[in-house]
């Protein structure tokens, strides 16, 4: 218990230290770098929360039984969408600073004039507010209902969730596409890619899966989640494996089509990312987000092996951070990695871990009121 207390104090210390650096970076490193970092962590927080909520909704959508015993983990991770709301609302202040489409000059830009209304500050903000509200709705129905079921043991929740899940999938697709287009590709509004929403979705789902696998393994270390076996881990590992390939497929398809067509307003986005030090980061991203996890998880046993799975899960979370960094930071020129970035990482990572630790202590570790829990525990490959 005292060890828990120590870890908690350490995290609070990290948050406090990080907060100092965050405030200092606004004054010392300028608003552009400050907001780029802020958006990086808003998107990371948001994709982690929404990716986890997607896992929950996916289970209800296809009536999966195997994942019922571990469902509480993505449900708890999905509550990260609650702190994502104030972070996202504060990020609205970044729009006039970083987003060229929301500046008055955009009206005279030949490529942006047609999109001016869409990119304007009021409509941009409205989309983000609506997206965040829709996420909270999904959280309330799927996670809130599930927590209530622990006490009531009422199977009506399962029927309600099954009906809601298809609607939530449509909401999810809309929200992740809007957030991806507005906050990430909106940084370079001349650039445009149809598949960009799917690319960000693949990363979001991967980060949710990796965090879920990590949380399951950590809780098992503490002797919790009794009954979750290698077979459950295998499925999580299998998903992780499949979606690293999916992410690479989407990412490469987007690159190859633009490379082939060689249209100036499209290739400039890659030109920036393949020049100078960004080239190394692009190669590192391909290696860390695809090659390494692919070969680490390709055999059958590796997906069940807790040690291997834990390492790959850490790797995937790191690769997701690198991925979003790679999407945002080229607007600042050469790669920036110094005390402002570390301060933001301390502040937000500390905060996220504190939130997750708090969430993991609340209520039951498994959805004990779910009638399919027993079937899920008996799941064998």
């Amino acid at each position, binding site marked *: 218990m005292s060890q828990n207390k120590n870890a908690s104090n350490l995290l609070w210390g990290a948050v406090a230290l990080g907060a100092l650096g965050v405030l200092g970076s606004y004054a010392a490193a300028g608003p552009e770098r400050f907001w780029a970092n802020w958006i990086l962590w808003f998107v990371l927080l948001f994709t982690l929360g929404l990716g986890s909520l997607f896992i929950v909704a996916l289970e209800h959508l296809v009536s999966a039984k195997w994942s019922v015993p571990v469902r509480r983990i993505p449900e708890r991770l999905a509550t990260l969408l609650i702190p994502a709301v104030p972070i996202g609302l504060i990020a609205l202040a970044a729009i006039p600073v970083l987003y060229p489409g929301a500046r008055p000059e955009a009206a005279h830009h030949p490529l942006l004039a047609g999109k001016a209304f869409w990119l304007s500050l009021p409509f941009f903000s409205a989309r983000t507010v609506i997206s965040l509200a829709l996420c909270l709705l999904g959280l309330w129905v799927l996670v809130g209902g599930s927590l209530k079921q622990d006490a009531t043991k009422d199977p009506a929740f399962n029927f309600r969730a099954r009906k809601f899940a298809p609607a939530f999938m449509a909401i999810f697709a809309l929200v992740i596409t809007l957030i991806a287009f507005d906050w990430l590709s909106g940084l370079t509004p001349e650039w445009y890619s149809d598949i960009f929403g799917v690319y960000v979705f693949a990363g979001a789902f991967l980060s949710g899966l990796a965090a879920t696998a990590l949380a399951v393994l950590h809780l098992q270390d503490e002797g919790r989640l009794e009954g979750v076996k290698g077979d459950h881990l295998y499925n999580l590992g299998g998903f992780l494996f499949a979606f690293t390939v999916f992410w690479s497929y989407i990412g*490469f398809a987007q690159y*190859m089509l633009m*490379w*082939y067509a060689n249209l100036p307003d499209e290739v400039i986005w890659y030109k920036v990312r393949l020049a100078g030090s960004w080239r190394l980061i692009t190669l590192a991203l391909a290696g860390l987000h695809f090659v390494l996890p692919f070969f680490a998880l390709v*055999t*059958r046993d590796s997906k069940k092996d807790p040690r291997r799975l834990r390492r790959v899960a850490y790797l995937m979370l790191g690769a997701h951070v690198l991925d979003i960094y790679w999407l945002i930071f080229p607007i600042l020129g050469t790669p920036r990695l110094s005390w402002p970035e570390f301060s933001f990482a301390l502040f937000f990572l500390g905060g996220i871990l504190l939130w997750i630790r708090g969430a993991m202590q609340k209520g039951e570790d498994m959805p004990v009121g779910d009638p399919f829990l027993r079937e899920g525990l008996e799941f064998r490959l």
Partner: protein
Amino acid sequence: MPEISYSVLGVFETPDALMHAIPKVRTSKLGTVEAYTPYAIHGIEEALGLRRSPLGGMVLVMGILGAITALGFQYWISAIDYPIITGGKGAGSWEAFIPIMFEVTVLFATFTAGLGMLHLLNRLPFFGHPVLSSKSIKGITRDRYILALEAEDEGFDSVAASKALREAGATEIEVLPAPDRSPFLTSDYILRTLGGIFAACVVAGLAMYFATKWFPLLKPMANMQDQPRLNAQKASAFFKDGHGMQQPVVGTVARGYLPTATGTQEEAASLVNPLPRTREVFATGRKVYTNRCEVCHGAVGNGVGSLTAAYGAKPANLQAQQFRDYPDGKIYWAIVNGKNSMPSHAPYLSEQERWSVVHYVRALQRAQNAKDEDLKVATR
């Protein structure tokens, strides 16, 4: 001669009974233990002590081989054997290879998985497995769980095997004969297969021949024939001016064809021939001269060509002192702009070809007015 017994089947009523029997039967070491069940039973691989199938490794190796094959073929074709620049991409651009590498990887891997599983690991094809003609087969596909002790060599003791299975709890025992492993690919079989393929080809070929002969207006695949292409000498609705081919934008110059500014003939006198006097340049000059100049100016440049009489024109005698004193630039100017009744040859000759002809004309003049030292160079 009694049939060699191949295996002994023991029938069990429940999967639990089967799982309990497996370790007992395995310790008897009478033969290979094999289980037949209507559905997959969890943990049975571990109980039977089945080793990990080598299929995964085979698939990995062949998949990587597929990727390398596709990469090698594409690189060799597009960068070494026949390098063509398409779409402005360099020869051997790896980006374009990835989709095909992906496909060939999957192709090699799936073929290895399918054929490896069927042929290498399960040794198909062969005529029938004895279990398929056993009395117990109905139960295997329905509600019975069967453990078999299969012969590993000719010393298989079916009596001891039956006893071991019964002691392990089997309710019924069945002894099976050896499988028919007679060779599958007999010459008769191969001949009949090849004959069948040949007959199918003949039938398909004849059918295609008569189909196209009797129904010539049926166009099964007319996409190539009816494509919306530009036809030579035909108007096209695609561009506003009705032309199929468009003129280059005003002021554009093709790479390597930067024209030499000429002006008047006097101004052109100062131009210097940019080409070196090499064998290739003289060969080009000779070819162009033969094709374009000789009919009027004559084979040696003396102004007596085969067309001179027919036209009644008087082409310049390039051997005259006036033209021998011309600087290179003035000859070049005449080729580009024409002179008197000689038309401009600019549309037909590239920059290179024009200057090559200038060199060649110089050679003709020198040949007709050779000096002593030229003779020394020639005989040396």
